[in-house]
């Protein structure tokens, strides 16, 4: 009976953590808003601005004109495998999901995970969607205990036709877990 109680508790613990994964902390640099496009004059049709991994901004469609003609900062995302117990960070799989949050006048319509590195080296067993795509969902072999997965996040921002003037904020979410 005692053994059965202990075994039931253990199975419950493994079952919960195994199904949902364990969330990992995510940070982005720069911490300030990025990428920001500055002042944009809009046109009668929607427009798309692409920001590449170097921060170069290019209008890929539409008639909007970006008044601020300098480059911008592209976020670098860092996911740290900080699970101290067991060997999850050594033998597990890190899953990273990037999605756009709903906004009004401008929104992110495409992401790319660029330059994916695990502890500054090449990641093993990379699979899934790394873009360009409206959302990203990819996995890599865990980089090791206390080590990080990093990548830059080029994206495309779409501005609606003749939106209301003023500030427009476009948001994205990054979640990460390890199994």
């Amino acid at each position, binding site marked *: *009976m*005692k053994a059965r*109680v*202990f075994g039931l*508790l*253990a199975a419950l*613990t493994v079952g919960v*953590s195994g199904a949902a994964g*364990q*969330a*990992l*902390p*995510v*940070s*982005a640099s720069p911490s300030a*808003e*990025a*990428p*920001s*496009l*500055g*002042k*944009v*004059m*809009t*046109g009668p049709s929607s427009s798309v601005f692409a920001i590449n991994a170097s921060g170069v901004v290019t209008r890929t469609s539409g008639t909007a*004109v970006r*008044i601020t003609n300098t480059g*911008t900062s592209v*976020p670098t*995302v860092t996911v740290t495998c*900080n*699970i*101290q*117990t067991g060997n999850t960070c050594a033998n597990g799989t890190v899953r990273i999901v990037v999605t756009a*949050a709903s906004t009004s*006048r*401008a929104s*992110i319509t495409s992401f790319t995970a660029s330059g994916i590195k695990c502890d500054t080296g090449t990641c093993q067993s990379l699979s899934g969607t790394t873009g360009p795509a409206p959302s990203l969902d990819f996995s890599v072999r865990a980089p090791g205990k206390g080590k990080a997965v990093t990548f830059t*996040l080029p994206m495309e*921002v779409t*501005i609606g036709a003749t*939106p*209301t*003037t*003023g*500030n*427009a*904020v*476009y*948001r*994205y*979410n*990054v*979640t990460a877990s390890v199994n």
Partner: protein
Amino acid sequence: MTRAHLSPALRAGALVLAAALVSTSAASAPPKQGSGRLTVVLPLTVTYVGDLAFGRLHTDAGHGTGTVTVKPWPIPARTAVNAHLGNGAPFGPALTTVRGEPGRLYRVILPTGVKTEQGGLSVGAFTIWSDVRGDVTASGVGQIGPDGKDTIRVGGTVTVPPKTKVQTFNAEPAITVSYE
């Protein structure tokens, strides 16, 4: 079964598992949210209203090259050096209406010189008056007013050769504007 029935060893095992669960929970982190920003502004539109008009004028044979200057402010004024000013034709600055985002600064770009539509006389030394910001000759920066518009008034100087007969002279300085 109740907890009172667990042996000390089993209780210790349960505590270890509970601690592991707490540790797992502590490792959790909320999703990271990032954002970028842009500022949507109205396009600048430019409406050319009227030419830079020097009115009627002429020069004599014996006084060399003359000049006539039109100043756009505070009220249009016309002055002459070695030239004679006549009546019967209006004079005044070139007028351009600029519409855009209220409060935004914009830059006015003018050519260094143009030719009059009559006789091809040289016109230059432009002066710029913004109805919102006043004399902006030095800075070249105007501002869209609260009503979403500004008027740019451009004055200038025409160089008139000797023995130019009485005539009306106009010029059309091409104006380019862009947001600052």
